């Protein structure tokens, strides 16, 4: 399935490295990345793809928790279907 991961937090060195390393460790492929700094606030959106039968989205969210804590970030992963639906309304 396709999912959208959003990463926000105060900007500092190594955020992208920490997030993408954690994704690589879980064998999750990144299809697209958009990243910007808004008022010193780091904002990154990743479009990722993974095999639903092998990965549970709740488990991925849980696996990102150590990165959230260590890097002081807010990371969410949500099905792309949600954003498509909201955008179409």
């Amino acid at each position, binding site marked *: 399935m396709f999912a959208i991961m959003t990463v926000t937090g105060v900007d500092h060195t190594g955020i992208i490295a920490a997030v993408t390393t954690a994704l690589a460790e879980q064998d999750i492929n990144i299809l697209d990345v958009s990243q910007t700094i808004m008022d010193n606030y780091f904002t990154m959106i990743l479009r990722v793809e993974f095999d639903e039968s092998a990965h549970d989205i709740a488990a991925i969210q849980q696996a990102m928790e150590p990165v959230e804590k260590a890097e002081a970030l807010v990371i969410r992963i949500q099905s792309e279907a*949600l954003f498509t639906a909201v955008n179409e309304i």
Partner: protein
Amino acid sequence: MSFHLNSRNILDTIEMIEKYRLDIRTVTMGISLLFCSRFTMEETCRAVYDLVVSRASRLVEVCQGIEAELGIPIVNKRISVTPVALITAGVEGNPADVARALDRAAREVGVNFLGGYSALVAKGATTSEKALIRSIPEALSETDLVCSSVNIATSRAGINMNAAAALGRVIKEAAELTADRNAIACAKLVVFANSVGDNPFMAGAYHGVEEPDCVVSVGVSGPGVVDRALGDLEGATLDQVAEEMMTGPDAEPED
């Protein structure tokens, strides 16, 4: 981003969830009990319990899976059933036993509420409907999750004054029986005029007889709708607020 969603769309959606509390208010499973009538109340209760538990066994689990997938909370998981007075018609015994069976079933599957301990008597009440109305105080004071409703009037048939009088006594007795719990029984009772054929909204929820065996209704909150409607009404009177809520250009139900 190069695919069909851009960053702005995505961040707007996240803002809706975080700031305006976009959530799925309720997922309500409507279950027809029409084929649960048996010769005795005990057998009817067993049939009702078994059917509700089998139909809704995975309701909460599936809702939790959807919550995780979408990252949006589903606040309530509920069940509505066919108005019970239709099931207990011709069955000897106390209809409150069915309420107790429904309460056990609701607990078993883990839903927040179950509605449908109901009777539709706008034009007149059958024997089983009268018995059900009389049993409402007992049913609501001895169960936790069961909700009850009675439709006593329609624009076409007028008001069933006998039912209105009976319900007055029912409400008083329900309040007295749960006086030590803030009269909670009354919070689980709705008396309707012009109720619709099928209603997924608690506490007046019931599964309409024109519905199929099993239906799932989803209620989504309108993020920011009320906020926007009230935004320009600083210092307005309550009447003006009420008017805006009912007729405002963006007016939509929140639940």
